[in-house]
């Protein structure tokens, strides 16, 4: 009898074997849900909520939430996979699969009497060995377009159809290469993802510049400008105390003017400074001028700017201020005192695009854009979201590669090699811990197995072929999903991220060990505990 039940007879609890079986069955259940998602041949799920909202996803995390699984163990695994996604952008399904499989394999030995603690220790050893193998098989790569395309393509093919994946790969790689800078790490925030819901069109393109989701709010402002100076600012051009309910009568023009001036001088001064700058840089040339402001611009200021032919946008996204400075050059201004030409950015063309009730402003043809936009068009929200998620993962995969400068051969090759190495390593270990190394090794094989099953091949056949082939060659051998035969992933250009694999190995073994070591599950409210 658990000690808690002495104190609180109402507490629910489960002990030792029972606790373990709760955890294991939850992990297995999740694994079953996710199994079909793994790899390029895994199915994509279309989730329809009770109210009719649609999500298309393969993302394990989204699936778990949508299915409203509230099992404590399941949510723990879900969190691990979210963490995986946050840190590397890929491998969520693999995480869930591997944790499930580790527990499943462990269960076999535990039911024969092996203590969970020994099991956990063995997992730790096995993990260290696997990480060693990982370091051994990593392939250093040169950062060039070809290599980046290969890694992005591998990642994207697991998210969308190959035809679309090819297109997205191109876009993602170009985007990252444009903003990449040798000295600094790449900041993916500088790739803006802009969506456009368009009834008939499905297309994704790279805009070397910026697309904003708002436009000019004055009918007289130009819709298209060429050779544009761009002033980026965070200065309010709005009459803040919006109290214009008084009418006034006047006898002379001077009096009238004085009234108005006094009230608005503050803002007008600012507008005037912009107009002066515009005149000094544009008059007599074919150049034009655009103002992009993070704060508001009221109709009166808009009117004054429109008269000068200045295109003015208000309430730009905060992050766009940074992006604009990178895309067009110039500096984002916080005050209009001492405005100079060198503060201005430049773009070849700025134009407005209206779509239904939404306006978009394109800033394009920048000289040396260090910030770009990926424009996603789709007929409805869930299509756009799915493409957006895929692009995000693709970008992350590329970014990881640039950061790591190494890749791991994909298509299950690493798992097969690690299995063989672990099996050999097992014999060097004394005691029962070797059993758990064996369990770990077996668990790793779930990845190639599921790849095979999802592609319609026999799991056992494949594993036998692969392990045998792997022992014969020093090169890594993976599964060719098109034929079901072993192949060399390096030749085919199938790669995984080093950091992703590393994270998976680390987090899975820790979570699995933790779950194994749970010997009591209790559910007792605050009320009952402290009341």
């Amino acid at each position: 009898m658990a000690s808690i039940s002495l104190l609180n007879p109402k507490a629910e609890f489960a002990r030792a074997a029972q606790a373990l079986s709760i955890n294991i069955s939850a992990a297995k259940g999740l694994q079953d849900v996710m199994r079909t998602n793994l790899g390029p041949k895994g199915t994509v799920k279309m989730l329809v909520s009770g109210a009719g909202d649609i999500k298309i996803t393969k993302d394990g995390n989204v699936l778990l939430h949508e299915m409203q699984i509230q099992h404590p163990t399941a949510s723990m695994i879900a969190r691990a996979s979210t963490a995986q996604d946050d840190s590397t952008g890929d491998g969520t399904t693999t995480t869930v699969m591997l944790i499930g499989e580790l527990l499943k394999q462990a269960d076999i030995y535990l039911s024969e009497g092996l203590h969970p603690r020994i099991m956990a220790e063995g997992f730790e050893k096995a993990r260290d060995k696997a990480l060693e193998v990982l370091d051994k098989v990593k392939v250093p790569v040169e950062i060039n377009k070809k290599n980046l395309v290969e890694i992005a393509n591998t990642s994207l093919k697991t998210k969308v159809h190959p035809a679309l994946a090819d297109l997205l790969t191109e876009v993602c790689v170009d985007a990252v290469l444009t903003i990449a800078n040798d000295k600094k790490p790449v900041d993916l925030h500088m790739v803006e993802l802009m969506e456009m819901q368009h009834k008939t069109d499905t297309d994704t393109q790279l805009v070397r510049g910026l697309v904003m989701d708002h436009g000019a709010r004055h009918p007289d402002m130009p819709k298209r400008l060429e050779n544009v100076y761009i002033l980026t600012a965070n200065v309010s051009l709005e009459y803040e105390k919006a109290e214009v309910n008084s009418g006034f009568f006047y006898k002379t023009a001077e009096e009238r003017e004085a009234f108005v001036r006094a009230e608005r001088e503050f803002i007008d001064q600012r507008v005037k400074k912009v107009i002066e700058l515009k005149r000094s840089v544009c008059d007599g040339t074919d150049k034009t001028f655009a103002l992009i402001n993070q704060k508001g611009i009221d109709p009166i200021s808009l009117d004054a700017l429109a008269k000068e032919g200045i295109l003015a946008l208000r309430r730009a996204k905060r992050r766009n201020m940074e992006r604009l400075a990178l895309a067009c050059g110039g500096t984002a201004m916080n005050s209009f005192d001492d405005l100079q030409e060198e503060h201005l950015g430049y773009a070849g063309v700025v134009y407005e695009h209206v779509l239904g009730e939404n306006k978009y402003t394109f800033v394009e043809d920048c000289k040396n854009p260090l910030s770009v936009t990926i424009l996603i068009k789709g007929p409805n929200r869930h299509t756009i979201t799915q493409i957006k998620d895929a692009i995000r993962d693709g970008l992350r995969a590329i970014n990881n590669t640039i950061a790591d400068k190494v890749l791991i051969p994909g298509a299950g090759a690493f798992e097969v090699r690690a299995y063989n190495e672990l099996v050999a390593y097992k014999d060097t270990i004394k005691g029962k811990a070797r059993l758990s190394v064996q369990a770990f090794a077996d668990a790793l094989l779930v990845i190639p197995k599921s790849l095979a099953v999802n592609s319609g091949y026999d799991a056992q056949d494949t594993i036998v072929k692969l392990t045998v082939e792997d022992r014969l060659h020093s090169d890594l051998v993976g599964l060719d999903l098109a034929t079901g035969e072993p192949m060399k992933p390096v030749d085919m250009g199938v790669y995984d991220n080093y950091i992703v694999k590393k994270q998976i190995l680390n987090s899975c073994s820790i979570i699995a060990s933790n779950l194994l070591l749970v010997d009591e599950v209790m559910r007792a409210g605050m009320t009952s505990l402290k009341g």
Partner: protein
Amino acid sequence: MALRAYIREGLNVAAIMGAGDTIAQLFIEKKSLQQWDIGRTARFSALGLVLVGPALRKWYLTLEKLVSKDQPALRRGIKKMAIDQTVFAPTFTLAMSFAVPYVNGEDTDKIKNRIRSSYFSIMLKNYMLWPAAQFVNFTFVPLPYQFGTYANYVGAHFWNQQEAHFVYDGASKQMAEEQRPQNDVLYREGLNDYGQTTYTPRLLSVDLAGNLAHLPMGGELYGNFVQRNEELLPLTTGSDLQKLKQSAEANNLSTVDQLEVRAQPPAPISEYQRDLLQGAIAPDKNYQLADTTRSWADYLYARYHPRTLNVLPDLIRDSEVQALATQAAGKEIWDGEAFNEDFCNRIRQYAEECEGLQGFHMLFDIDDGFSGLASKCMEHLNDEYGRVSYVLPLHYPRIPSYNQADPRTAHSIRVVNSVMSYYHLSEQATMFTPLSTLETIWRNNTLQSRRLPGVAWREGNLYQTSAVLAAFVDTMTLSYRLPQTPQSLVRFCDSVCPVGRKLTAAAMALPFGLQQEQDLIDFLDQSGDHSLLTQLTPGCEAGNSYVMQSLMARGIPTSRLKRPQEQAGPQLRMAAYSCNSVSQMLQLYYQCSFHGSVTHAASTPLPLRTRLPFPYELFEANIATDGCQVAGGGEREPHSRVESAPVLAALQNSTKLGEHLDNLHAQTHRVQIGKLQSYSQSAVDREEYETALDKLLEFRDNYADSQHL
């Protein structure tokens, strides 16, 4: 009637112009009282009475009619401005430049010469800046927010009320144009993907997943969802699941050729909503909304923009307990990237659309974690936009329960949430008014509900109580939405919040209590010492001395004010008989009955609509269909329903509101802050709580007696 309006307008302008001239003479020209040229002042006033006042009124009424209503607000504003500037401005300026010197006795020829030389330059100056300023007058918008489940209940009633006053195709000409609320203040025009024009609130609402019931996240107007109820398919913008699946496959969204569809069971749709979607609402049908409503979506008549609805990540509604319990948990969600980025972007998009953003208007649940979300949001709004905000914290009409909390802990959670919220409100809001249908809120055992004479609701029923609170919110905010009382949100807040007294109390009379055929003057005369209003802010009474208040009376027609002179009888002897409008009379009434107080009264003939989906069953049997009491203690016909009701609402501020804060502070002695720290994953920060307590006391000092008006 119309003539009287002209005279009133004329008198107003005359008074303003007269006062203006007096000031000019005494202070600008520095004349002494003896030198004061009363004749000149009188001439100015006369000019206002006969020329300026009537001319302005006639012109703006004409302008309103000239420009057709069925076009976007912006275009309409531009058109109005164009006509105003090309037709009215030149003639009126000319008339004024002639009339002003003329009444001052200048020589006609001299005036002509001067006009010839300077008229052109005056007009030029006029055109250079004035049009835009005029234009701002036409659109002034506050952005509304709703945080929390109960806030959305109240909000749903509020928006239903707005739409109840919409007039389509000029069907109802009964009410003059100028007396309808300006809907453009709260609504925006849009265009959906099907090329249809939409008219939706500029609202941002946050709730838990599950409370949306049958409502898809993006609303129903813009498509983007599967219509789960097959029989409604041809009627709405929802699509067929099969078609969507095919199109997704055609767009290569799946890695393999087939998408795997996983559909949850369709969310049940309420009978009212089903009839609404099919356009088959039976006005006399009894939908029993009070019993069947599971969520505000069940009775929402209004339709929202896709930007409007937000759900909190990872939380699902639980009908038993508040899923999001503490302030700290709410703040954590605001800070999380999953919520913050998208939500702030939506705020920005609404703000970007507004021509004259004047402020924010926020409803939130103060009893649970949504208060944290709202506090953080206010902070964000102040940082980014720096406008006024009018905030209404709402208390549940019953004691909420929290996950795994005994009554004592629940009490602590509730008090701490309130303390923290008041701390933020006193720092961030321009004015705030706590609302509840309960009399006391923070103590656990004494649950006393307020009673409004003439209506009865089931205690704890969210649908009914929220309707009462929404009636207050709607009536009170009319004062910045009516065209003839052009009050901006800034002035609205300033008028009841002197120096730092940001907390105001709400009071309402629903229905107003007038008997059928009774005149307002008699009603007020007979009311005696009995207060007209019932408090809706828990734990305080504003008292009747040194009160600053703002009143809004609706649905009392001017014809019911008093009797015409020949039939007046005893009414003639009453001081109030000289009052010519409801607002004037109420103002006088409160001047007489409240000591040392300031009252701003406004009124509109527009009643509160109490048809479906408003809980019409609230009204007791002695209330007639027009919301007045049946004379002689009779009852209205059985089976007939109250269609509309007159309402009086007030915002009050007095030293006695300090009691409300004292009540809260007294409860903090029982808070077990230590226990709360281990309550949930996001613990209450003890230091922050102690700061909040100090600030609460500091804030209470504003209400000390020595600080009065």
